[in-house]
């Protein structure tokens, strides 16, 4: 089996009709300070083109990883999909409707967990459920909360506050909270970035297990090649910023359910890994070089 770069830049007329989420020529520019005050204060800054002309179709029930050198605008892209940030140009269509803002149809898992410290594990999940489904009866809310705490394996820690549990457990709460509102898409922004290597591996296995149960569409930002290979169906590789683009999209053909040991046996594993490594290495080296030349 060979590595097939599916398409480098999707031409405008070949949008997938079945796509659940579709990015069309999305560009994000962070406008610099150009008002009179900033000019007088000598603080005038230039516009920064974070993302330029990205087109991407995401099919339902696929696990998509976005990987790229740091500072390439991966998080910006995810924030635009989440609706936390506007697009400067282009469109993001979700079920053929343009995204107007944040909404509970997209569940978000944050890198630094973003749990409310004053709420217990259970209350954090409950807050999400009650916010999204205010009309639900208490019984239904309780059941949903309990189910999702069970799903992420946190039974027994319901009454603990976030500062009393480990980083890995906190991110489980973050995942339970995102899933409890039954979103159509799960967005994860480097969900394991702040965890130590052992905990990270453990949580990756958990995500694989949960994904097998639910098969939701997932978009995950990551720095880790192994993580992307273990979890994803497709891997989107982005170029370095500024004006980051999609460089290549890889299909990951490993059968599911996967685990670390068996995927390494797969014939495509090493060529995929090598492909990603060389891409990331090239882009990261270019980022470093650009930084040296600037200063």
């Amino acid at each position, binding site marked *: 089996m060979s590595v097939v770069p599916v398409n480098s830049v999707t031409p405008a007329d070949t949008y997938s009709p079945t796509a659940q989420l579709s990015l069309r020529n999305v560009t994000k520019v962070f406008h610099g300070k150009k008002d009179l005050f900033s000019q007088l204060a000598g603080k005038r800054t230039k516009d920064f083109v974070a993302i330029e002309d990205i087109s991407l179709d995401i099919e339902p029930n696929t696990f998509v990883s976005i990987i790229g050198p740091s500072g390439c605008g991966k998080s910006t892209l995810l924030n635009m999909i989440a609706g936390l940030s506007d697009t400067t140009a282009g469109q993001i269509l979700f079920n053929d409707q343009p995204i107007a803002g*944040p909404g*509970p149809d997209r569940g978000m898992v944050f890198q630094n967990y*973003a749990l*409310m*410290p004053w709420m217990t594990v259970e209350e954090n999940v409950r807050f999400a459920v009650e*916010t*999204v489904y205010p009309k639900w009866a208490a019984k239904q809310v309780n059941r949903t909360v309990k189910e999702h705490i069970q799903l992420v394996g946190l039974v027994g820690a319901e009454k603990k506050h976030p*500062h009393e549990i480990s980083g890995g457990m906190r991110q489980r709460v973050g995942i339970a909270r995102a899933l409890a509102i039954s979103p159509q898409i799960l967005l994860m922004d480097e969900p394991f970035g702040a965890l130590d290597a052992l905990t990270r591996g453990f949580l990756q296995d958990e995500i694989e297990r949960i994904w097998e149960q639910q098969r939701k569409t997932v978009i995950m930002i990551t720095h880790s090649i192994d993580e992307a290979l273990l979890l994803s169906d497709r891997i989107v590789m982005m170029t370095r910023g500024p004006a980051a683009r999609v460089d290549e999209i890889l299909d990951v053909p490993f059968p599911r359910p996967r685990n670390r040991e068996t995927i390494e046996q797969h014939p495509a594993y090493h060529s995929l890994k090598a492909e990603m490594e060389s891409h990331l290495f090239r882009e990261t080296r270019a980022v470093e070089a650009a930084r040296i030349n600037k200063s």
Partner: protein
Amino acid sequence: MAVSKPTIGAPYYESEKESPFFSENVRAFLLFVGSLAVFLLLWELGARSGIFARGMPTATKTLEELWWWITHPFFNNGPNDLGIGWNLLISLRRVAIGYTLASLVAVPLGILIGISPIARKGFNPYVQLLKPISPLAWLPLGLYILRDSEQTGVFIIFISSIWPTLINTSLGVANVNKDYLEVAETLGASRLRTIFKVIIPAALPSIVAGLRISMGIAWLVIVAAEMLLGTGLGYFIWNEWNNLYIPNILVAIFIIGLVGLILDSIFAAFEKFVAFGRNS
């Protein structure tokens, strides 16, 4: 092969050097008691030999008076001869009313100012201008407008204890961790739900810290204000100054400090309660 020999019986770990009788806390307590004894001794000797100002009471005389006032807190022989318990309650009552009113205004207003950057910039000049004014500067104005010493006392407490709470609340609300707000936003929480369920709990440590500072200031101010108002602990001191009876002044100073300490400890405990692992 170098295999460690199995030890017989329980393994022996060397215990910590200090014995339980000389732990850090015990030592600190001994230091406290020792220094207090030295202080009282020097005071007693100094007062007896007359190296302090003339009429300076001895330590024993002062402690005797302290004991008398504490064991006879509630008597009432007219406004100039009132038990220290009554005076304390009068002061606490003024503080409670003025401080509660100030908090009821400062917390909601602070939340409002914190949420809106425009309100913050717009109201900031008032806050910054009024904050540094000495509370006693309001006294003549209060007496003129209210024409009542009791109400003026409450007004002084109100005007002086409103600022720390207001400023801390607005800062706390304005600086709520962006992650919490993004969570609320991605869940599609309404503005009102976000304010009550996210912003206020997130800002609670700052709000309580502000309330604590305000309480400290209220307690500082009431004593000064009461010297000019009649009744209360401040007036007690002023009255004893007019009687030129120094031991009672020292007794009152000690009691004011003690009550301030208790009030502050209550708020410190409250601060800890709302922190949830966050360093306040």
